[in-house]
Structure formats: C-alpha cells, structure tokens
C-alpha cells in the first residue's frame, strides 16, 4: 500500500497509524503489546515490512519484537543484552550515579532501535545504562560495541533525569563506518570505524549543570538530527540550547536565536530542505510543558537562528503537554509531512511541512516515540 505508516510507541502499548499519500484520513491500529511500555518502534529502510519494537516494563524486563509483515504480526526475538568486560576496569566497570558515587553498569531497557540503511537483518540498539548493541542476525543475538562505553571518560558519565541512556543514533547515509550517538548526560560521540572507537564531539557546548561548563563530556544532549544530503551538518537539541555543527561534530555553535525558550527534546530536519529545522520549545527544565499553554512547533528555514511559530490546528490555550525526544518524525513525500506525539496522547500530522496541523488521534496513552515510513 502506498502511503504513510506512522509507528507510535506509548506508555501502554504500540499503535500503527496508516493513511494514503494525502494524509487526511487515518486508520488507527492497536494497542499492540497492551500494557507494556514501548519506548521505540522503527522500520527498516532496506525492507519496509520489517519493523522493530522495544517492549519493556518494570515487572518483566526487556523484550524486543520484530514484524516481517508491516506490523500485522510480531515475534519476540533475542533480549540478552550483556555488557562486555572492559580492559583496565573491573568487569564491565562503573559509571557515576546521580550522587556522584561509582555504580556498576546495569542493563535496564532499550531506548532506541536504529535499523541499518542497507541490511534488514542488522539493527542497532541504544540502551540504558548507556551502551550501544548491534545485531546482525535479525535480532536473535546482540553484541555490545563496547568501544563507546570503554572510552576513557566512561567512569565519569552520569545519568540525566530519565536515566543514563543512549537515546539517539544517526547513521551516515553513505559511510557505514561513521555514526553519531547521543547519551544523557554524557554528550555526543562519533565513530569513524563502525563503532570500534568513539570520539566525544562536544566542543562548543556550554552546560551550567556540570562543574566545568565546557567539559569534554557531561552534557545532557537531548536529540540529534541530520539531513542525508549534508551529513556533516548536525543539529542538536540540548537540555538548554539548540546547537549546530558544520564539521561532523568537531565544533558547535548556538542557533537558538529568537526561540521563546531553548529548552526542549526533539529536533528534526525537513526531508527536502536541509536548512529547514523543527523544534518544540518547552518551558524549562523544571516545568516540562509547552510555554504559556500553547502548543507551538517552531520552524527555521535558515538553518537556525530565525524561527517562526507554527500554530494552525494546534491548541493555543490550556495545553500543558510535553513532546519527548523521539516523538517527532518527517516523511519523504513531495510535500514533506511532519509528525509528533505528546505526553497527553495526541499524535499530530502536518502534510504541508508544518503550515497546518491535524490531530490523527487524540487520547492515546502518553506518547514516547513517533516514527514514519514513506511507502511508495
């Protein structure tokens, strides 16, 4: 079927929303995995019928689900995420706990699943406590790319409010050896050798929450985005500050410009305009809701700095929701569609690049993630 397939992870299950290319009339299917937290779902770019879902809960731990028919049916695959011993450290080593004391690394859940761009059987998992795992056998088994956690700064990493989590992984569109990862609250990292070794890429970030504001690591990076036509240009929503790099993360500069607040979680780039960027400003680090009771997506068409509020079709009074870091996505139709989900359970779609919005579904459980597949 040609059209859009939106994959929604929520606090109490997964939902699949489908529409034709006009993106006006939607079918809502779910809940899948009812009662479980679904941190993330994502489809394989190499095989759109292959979907991945991270299913977890406090009682029964982590399950990874795979669908080979576009979400009609699912099967549990491997869920053994064992940390590798680290050279020079005892066992898998330690990181800092919230209070600054050492804490052994312990797997909690999968935050993000990033399928390979070319191989349907290869998928990466970003997990809490922060580490990156890779499966090359369709999810049957997982092996840690321990060079990331083994970076010399690893023992100093500390959790953000949501835990010490690897929540973002960007794959370079043409160079399989290059990836970008973001960890709360360690910062951004880049590998140029397929994940064997990693370089912190946080120069230019300033964070008032750490002893040295310009430290090499310790920054609470909330999300990263890139456009495939310019993979050296990265956009970042940090705890506070919206940032940009034009040298693959070697240095960053602020592009918050005239945003009403530069705190937020998601950031994304238009499918066909690499200088068009979307964020959802949030009041502050102590009040995780949109400012002034108004749900506004902000769009920059200048690669940052100058931002315009997008409000048509969005509630402009008495709205107190958040939009989490993985809960925004864009499709690749000629008129780029933009999607996001809220902690109030609404999923919005703009079929015209953000000019106007419609609510696809209004009363889901709190939305944790939104991804979209462009089916042709």
């Amino acid at each position, binding site marked *: 079927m040609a059209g859009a397939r939106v994959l929604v992870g929520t606090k109490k299950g997964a939902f699949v929303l489908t529409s034709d290319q006009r993106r006006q009339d939607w079918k809502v299917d779910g809940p899948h995995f009812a*009662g*479980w937290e679904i941190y993330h779902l994502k489809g394989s770019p190499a095989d759109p019928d292959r979907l991945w879902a991270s299913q977890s809960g406090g009682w*029964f*731990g982590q399950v990874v689900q795979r669908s080979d028919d576009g979400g009609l049916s699912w099967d549990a695959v491997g*869920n053994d995420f*064992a940390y590798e011993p680290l050279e020079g450290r005892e066992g898998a080593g330690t990181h800092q706990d919230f209070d600054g004391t050492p804490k052994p690394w312990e797997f909690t859940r999968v935050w993000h699943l990033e399928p390979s761009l070319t191989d349907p059987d290869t998928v990466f998992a970003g997990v809490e406590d922060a580490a990156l795992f890779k499966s090359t056998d369709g999810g049957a088994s997982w092996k840690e790319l321990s060079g990331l956690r083994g970076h010399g700064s690893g023992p100093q990493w500390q959790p953000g409010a949501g835990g010490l989590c690897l929540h973002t992984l960007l794959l370079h569109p043409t160079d399989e050896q290059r990836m970008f990862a973001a960890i709360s609250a360690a910062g951004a990292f880049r590998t140029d050798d397929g994940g064997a070794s990693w370089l912190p890429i946080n120069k230019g970030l300033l964070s008032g929450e750490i002893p040295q504001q310009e430290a090499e690591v310790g920054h609470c990076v909330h999300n990263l985005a890139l456009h495939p036509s310019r993979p050296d240009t990265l956009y970042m929503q940090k705890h506070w500050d919206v940032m940009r790099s034009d040298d693959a993360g070697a240095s960053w500069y602020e592009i918050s410009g005239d945003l009403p607040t530069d705190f937020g979680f998601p950031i994304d780039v238009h499918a066909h305009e690499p200088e068009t960027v979307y964020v959802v400003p949030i009041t502050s680090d102590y009040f995780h809701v949109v400012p002034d009771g108004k749900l506004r997506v902000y769009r920059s068409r200048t690669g940052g700095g100058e931002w315009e509020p997008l409000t048509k079709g969005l509630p402009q009074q008495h709205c107190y929701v958040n939009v989490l870091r993985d809960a925004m996505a864009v499709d690749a139709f000629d008129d780029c569609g933009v999607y996001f989900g809220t902690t109030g359970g609404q999923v919005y779609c703009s079929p015209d690049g953000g000019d106007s919005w419609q609510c696809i579904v209004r009363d889901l459980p709190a939305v944790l993630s939104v991804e979209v597949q462009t089916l042709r």
Partner: protein
Amino acid sequence: MTRVVLPHHLRSLARLDGEVQVEARTTREVLDALEAAHPALRGTLRDSGSGQRRPFVRFYACSEDLSHVSLDDPLPAAVLRGDEPFLVIGAMAGG
C-alpha cells in the same frame, strides 16, 4: 505434571491461554521448562546472565511464598501431584 499459572502479560507474550503444564519438581526446573517451551519468556522471569529472579516477580504455591526458598528445593507435594498450581505473580507495585 506441574501446573503453572502465569500473569496476564506473560501469557500474552507467550501466546498462552490458561494454565501451562511442565515436567518439573523444583522451581529451577519450572523456569527451565517454561523458557525451553516458550523462548519469548527468556529474560522476563529471571535475568538471562545472572539467573536471578527479577525483583518484581514472585512465586507462590499452597498459600506459601516460595520466592526466597532455594531454586532446587522440591516443590510442595500438592503441586507435584497437580492438586495445586505453581503461581508466577507480578508483585503489587501500583498506586
């Protein structure tokens, strides 16, 4: 045969209706048999690496809490006879 009752979330994960019957005389054998017959349950009852029971999972039978007895102790006779089920419970932790 030992009768095992799983909580709703695990029955749906393993696509089971009602009780499960396994050949088992100890708690460890119950867990081994469940995971062998239903691989989707691996890691949900006990940690795959350490084998430790997950903190919010409890084992009850014959009005007794078996969560902290040795995994290799014999199950109660009534469970072994099939008169009473072995209960896997998700601990109460809600509001």
